[in-house]
Each structure stands twice: as structure tokens, then as C-alpha cells.
């Protein structure tokens, strides 16, 4: 559905993105991750036909986003970051206007507008001025707009930014459902969301692709995947030093809770050191009240790839 070849964009001598290459297949939900300023929005804007690349090529459903821009644009629904909308229009009026711009045949406009309002839960605000809507509703109007012309591809730039946890859940559900019929490229900072919704993930950093794989494979690949949390009463022993001696433990952080010490262990991937910790504790007569294997998350992958110092 999306094919990107050697895509480069330079602003005033600075490269925002350099030689990006990736593909998104029909029906895939692709997560697009990266720190702020990594080039996510730039890439999405180029794909949406908002600005041309400096060099390289991108196609959507076989249409070049620059030379066959109209055909490409007709096949994608784009929701920009922060969802810019005309504040002086009413929700209904805006959706009808957008439907006309997106070549929805006039006899189908009412039906399509009704459908997207239903899907995005906009029925109760349809007569309201957009300027008076809450952030969550604005986000939904943006999504409804992107869906109006039944595009094959949805490009969503941070669709859940600024939403409260309930709204994030609703949007996440909505995206999951949309993924059944649409190809989706979605950027976000909320990593659990990506783990839950996306089939594949691209991590981009300083304009380059650092990783492109399924979340599970990414978790398997990183050096320090797992961790263990131990809460123990170690009496006079220096527990951290002892724990560090266990093979596979990379570093130990200690916190104190009264008599109890809470150790967070970073462990090399694929190792389970809980048994050794248990043995150590019984040898030293430590009282243990927690011993938990922490599963690595996409957050660990993200930090490792984009800011290794923080690991």
C-alpha cells in the first residue's frame, strides 16, 4: 500500500529524514515511533502529499505522492498532528464540506457523514461549533474527516495525544476496528498502545530508520530485555553487590522502604535469574516478600534504540 524508497527531506541544509526505505502492506497496522523531532511528521506529510521530498520516491497504492498526487490523495485519509479545524464551522457543516472536497458523490454525502458520525461518536455534538468542542471531540472530528471518503489507507499523526485515559482507550478500540478494513500508518508516543494495536513497528531516530519489525521480534532483539524486581530484608548485607555477582545481571538499582530494600535488576535477554536469586536469599537468610520477572516492553526497545545512555 505504501512504498517508500530513499526518501530524503532537507530543510535549510538540515536533513529531517535521510534515505528512508520501508513498505506497508495492504491491511497492515504499522506503528511509527521515534523521539520528538525524529522526522515522523515530515515523513507523514510527504506521504499525505502536503510537501514534496527533496529526493527519493514514495507511492501510495502505486501512485507517486508527488507526480500523481491527486490520485494518491484520493486514496488516503490523513489526520494531521493536533487536528487543525475551522473553529467557525459546525461539526455537520464541516463534514459535509470535507466530503464534497474529497469527491464523495453528492447523493452519498448524507450517508457517509452519518456513518462516520456514528463510528466516531459525534452524534451528540453534530450541531456544535467546532471551536467549542473539547480536545477529545476535536480528535474524533479529525478522524471522522479522515474516514469520510472510505480511503484504503489511513495516516494518523499522534491520534491520541492530549486525550485522557478513557478517550485513549476509545480511540485505540476505534483504530483496532478500523484496522480490519483499512491499512493504517500511525505515529504515537504511547508505546503500550502500539504493542496492543500494531502488527509492525518502525522506529525512526534522527531521520533514519533504526528498526522495522513486529513488536515481539523487537523485544527479542534488544540486549537488555528483561528485568527482575526483588524486595528483601537483607539485614546488614549489601544486597546489591551480592545480586550483581549473579551471572547475567547487568546492573542493580536499590530503593529503600523502611527495613525493606527494593532491588531492580537489569538482566540480559533470554535469562531467568529468579532461581539464583532465591538460592542467594536462602543462603544469606534474607526475608523476601517479592520476586517478580518484569517483561520487557516496547518502551525499553525505544529507549535503547534512540537514547542508549538512559538504559
Amino acid at each position: 500500500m505504501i512504498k517508500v524508497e530513499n526518501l530524503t527531506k532537507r530543510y535549510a541544509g538540515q536533513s529531517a529524514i535521510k534515505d528512508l526505505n520501508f513498505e506497508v502492506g495492504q491491511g497492515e497496522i504499522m506503528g511509527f515511533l521515534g523521539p520528538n523531532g525524529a522526522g515522523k511528521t515530515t515523513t507523514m506529510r510527504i506521504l499525505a502529499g502536503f510537501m514534496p521530498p527533496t529526493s527519493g520516491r514514495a507511492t501510495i497504492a502505486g501512485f507517486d505522492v508527488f507526480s500523481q498526487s491527486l490520485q494518491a490523495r484520493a486514496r488516503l485519509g490523513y489526520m494531521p498532528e493536533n487536528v487543525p479545524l475551522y473553529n467557525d464551522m459546525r461539526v455537520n457543516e464541516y463534514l459535509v464540506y470535507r466530503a464534497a472536497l474529497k469527491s464523495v458523490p453528492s447523493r452519498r454525502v448524507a450517508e457517509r457523514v452519518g456513518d462516520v458520525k456514528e463510528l466516531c461518536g459525534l452524534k451528540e455534538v453534530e450541531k456544535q461549533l467546532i471551536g467549542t468542542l473539547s480536545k477529545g471531540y476535536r480528535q474524533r472530528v479529525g478522524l471522522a474527516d479522515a474516514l469520510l471518503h472510505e480511503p484504503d489507507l489511513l495516516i494518523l499523526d499522534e491520534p491520541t495525544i492530549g486525550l485522557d485515559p478513557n478517550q485513549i482507550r476509545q480511540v485505540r478500540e476505534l483504530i483496532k476496528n478500523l484496522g480490519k478494513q483499512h491499512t493504517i500508518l500511525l505515529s504515537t508516543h504511547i508505546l503500550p498502545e502500539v504493542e496492543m494495536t500494531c502488527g509492525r513497528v518502525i522506529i525512526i531516530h534522527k531521520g533514519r530508520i533504526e528498526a522495522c519489525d513486529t513488536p515481539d521480534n523487537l523485544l527479542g532483539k534488544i540486549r537488555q530485555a528483561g528485568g527482575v524486581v526483588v524486595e528483601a530484608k537483607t539485614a546488614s548485607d549489601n544486597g546489591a553487590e551480592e545480586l550483581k555477582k549473579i551471572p547475567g545481571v547487568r546492573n542493580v538499582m536499590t530503593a529503600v522502604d523502611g527495613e525493606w530494600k527494593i532491588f531492580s535488576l537489569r538482566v540480559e535477554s533470554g535469562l531467568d535469574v529468579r532461581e539464583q536469586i532465591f538460592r542467594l536469599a536462602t543462603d544469606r537468610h534474607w526475608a523476601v516478600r517479592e520476586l517478580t520477572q518484569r517483561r520487557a516492553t516496547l518502551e525499553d526497545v525505544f529507549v535503547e534504540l534512540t537514547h542508549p545512555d538512559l538504559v
Partner: protein
Amino acid sequence: MHKFYTLLVREVRSYFHSPIAYVVLIFFLLVAGVDFYFQVSFMNQRQVQYTVQEAFFNSVFFWFAFVLIFPLITMRLFAEEFKLGTIEPLMTAPVRDWQVVLGKFFGALVFYLVLWIPTLLYFAIFLRITHEPAAHSVGAYLGSYLMLLLLGMFYLSIGCLTSVLTKNQIIAAVISFCTITLLFFLGLVQYIRDRAHGDFLSGRDRYAAYCVLRQHDHRAADSHASGISISKMEALING
């Protein structure tokens, strides 16, 4: 064509959804109304060689108001879209650039024409009350309004251009105001130059005239002197 029409309608609607439309309408109609009133009452007081229609479109403060409305009408066209970021959904919809540009231009033009419609009433009312037409012929009205249309299109297009250059409406307004004012009063440069040139000529003329006059004066003085002497002589003669 359908998309152009959609964009045009949105543009016109958005004028009337914003307070700026009403501010411009009130300001403009106030100036035009006061102007019309003063022209008519001035003509009531004395005999003049021109018609009400000529006086209405020729007064200085009317023209100042005229150049002021274009920046106000056009400054928001693109600058506002850039500022709000709405240019992004707009340009990522499958629309062509010319459809957007012409939609905005003609949207502004429609508003501009709406501004002028009430002035037609002035002439109708004048005719009804005085039973005298305000102009020599229908052609004079047509000519005035055609001039307003063409000049309007020209200045609106300048305003559209300056609105694309920036996301700040104030900057767009200032640039277009300066450009339009400059173009509008460019004719004055010729006038001033002619005047300066004319003064120089007349100065030279005056010098020439002065020379001639002096000669004449000398002669006159001579004749005057002789005149005096003659009259003196006459007086003496007459005793």
C-alpha cells in the same frame, strides 16, 4: 468545478461567520454614506459643473476608505489557514492548487461586491426624492461600477498574494496596504512631477515675464514719467 464551488461557498460563509465582515461593512458604509450626504448637501449650496455620481466617486476620503478595505478583506485568506494549520487538511484533500486559490480569490470578490450593493440604493433614493438622475446617463453608472469591479479584482489579487507570504495577518495587511496605496497614488507622482515641472516653467516664465515686464515697466515708467510730466505740464499749463 464542483470543488471550486465548494471552496468558494465556504470562503464566503466564513466571512459572514467572522466579525471582520461586519466591521468592514459598517466602516465602509458609514464612510460611503457620509460622503454621499456631504456631496449632495454641498451641491445644494452652490452651482457646480459635475453630477452627484461624479462627486461621490471622486472625493478624497472616499478613496482612502477604498484602499483600506482590501487589506481587511484579504489578509485572512491564506495567513489564517497557515496560522491555524488548516492548510494541511486542505492541501492533503484531493483538490488542485488552482481550485483553492481561485476559490479564495472569488470568495473575497463576492464579499467585495456585497459591500458595494447598498451604494446602488443611494442613487435610487436620490432619484426617487429629487426626481433627477444622479448621473448623465446609465453608462456613467455602468462605467463607475465596472471600474470598481476591475480595480477591486486587481487589488484583491494583490491582497491574496501578500496573504500567502506570511502566517501573520497583520503583516499581510500592512504589505498589501502599502502596495495598493503605492499603486493607487502612483498617478500622483506624475501629477507632482508635472506640478514641479510646471513651477519651474512658470518660474522661468516668470523670469521671462519679469524681463518683459521690466522692459515694459521701463517703458511704462518712461511713459508714466512722461505721463506725469505731461500731466504736470498740463496742470502747470492749466494753472
